[in-house]
């Protein structure tokens, strides 16, 4: 990989990381949102036994909506802080996009691990196939981070922002969401899962990253 591109990505990632550490409210909001949702689901179920398919669907609904609160941070925060102009001026399109994508992936992965651990404890299920379970989680989160970063950049130009990000996200992320539910159900229930879905998810993640990278240039440069 191009050395200066990698340097730029690293720099972008570190900046996001430092800002994230210094502004803990954003993290706290995300985690509390996830915790609240989990608690609601768990309370509503009152410890009843759950079908693997239903458990998988619930888990991914929680992961998806909890990440909606965090996946657009990358550009929404720059927009509200008014720092988008200076970033545009000094940061190249690719390091900015990929650095933010990487940070988003990291953030959502931490969030997903938090959700999953609590989910397994509170709902009382355990994956039979840990490998499939973890890989599905990683690929799912990667897809959300990849699509979320580009769509967050898109949404900064809109006057009405409430809910717009989720509306834009859902159709694009369904190809990650549906196989993820399917695979997770298999991993929880111990039924033989079609492993080529994992390949399909990885492929679609790749497609999202490449697509975002190509299209982002058009958003970042005005000519």
């Amino acid at each position, binding site marked *: 990989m191009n050395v200066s591109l990698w*340097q*730029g990505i690293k720099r972008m990632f570190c*900046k996001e990381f430092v*800002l994230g550490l210094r502004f803990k409210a954003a993290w706290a909001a995300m985690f509390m949102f996830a915790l609240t949702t989990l608690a609601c689901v768990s309370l509503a179920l009152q410890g009843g036994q759950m079908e693997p398919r239903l458990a998988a669907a619930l888990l991914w609904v929680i992961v998806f909506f909890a990440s909606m609160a965090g996946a657009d941070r990358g550009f929404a925060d720059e927009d509200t802080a*008014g720092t988008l*102009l200076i970033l545009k*001026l000094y940061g190249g399109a690719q390091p900015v996009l990929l650095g933010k994508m990487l940070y988003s992936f990291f953030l959502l992965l931490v969030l997903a691990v938090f959700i999953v651990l609590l989910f397994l404890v509170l709902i009382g299920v355990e994956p039979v196939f840990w490998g499939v379970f973890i890989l599905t989680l990683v690929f799912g989160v990667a897809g959300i981070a990849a699509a979320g970063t580009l769509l967050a950049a898109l949404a900064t130009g809109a006057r009405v922002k409430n809910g717009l990000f989720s509306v834009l996200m859902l159709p694009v992320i369904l190809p990650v969401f549906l196989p993820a539910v399917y695979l997770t159900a298999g991993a929880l229930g111990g039924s033989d899962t079609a492993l080529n879905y994992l390949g399909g998810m990885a492929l679609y993640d790749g497609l999202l990253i490449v697509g975002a990278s190509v299209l982002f240039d058009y958003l970042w*440069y005005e*000519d």
Partner: protein
Amino acid sequence: MVKINFRAVEQRFYGRQIFGPLDCTLSGGRIMAVTGKNGSGKSTFLKLAGHLLPPSQGKITVVSDGRELRGEELRRHLAMVTPEMRFYDRLTARENMDFLLGMRGITLDNAVYGELLGRVGLDEQAVCHSYAGDFSTGMKQRLKMAVLLAARADIWLLDEPGANLDEAGRQMTAREVRAAADKGVLVVLATNEPGEEALADERIALAGH
């Protein structure tokens, strides 16, 4: 040497005509003042010149040594000081500079920092230890100048660079702008300040509609 050509450029916002049609050429080594009353489109003019905003009509070309600059390459030639520009509030001034310049592939050692901060009149202690968000408006303005000077750009887009600065600060800005132009930098200066206008080699007055 850089040149920016405006050809039949018009700008509208929500159907309101801001200015145009406008034809002009800006060249490296010269200071161009853009004047006009509030709302006449001075800041817009700067953004158009740097391709940070597409014109509603017409074409703007930036040429360096006979080659047209676009996209990323053009950005690398740009530096800007404008009231709209904000630093990251929760990074120290030094971290802000390291990040922004680092994204351009520029790293500065301590000696260069010291020299740079001396030029714009900022205290090194403050720069290293307090958040940019805690800076006064005048200090932020000086920090913008510091980033501008360090960016090694040859197109400077300055929107009221003397705003919020004391007398010494305004003199510093005038001195740096003149020095840069003498080294071949293309300077566009949007201002209504008679002192800053006097710096200019050329002037465009935007009438406003």
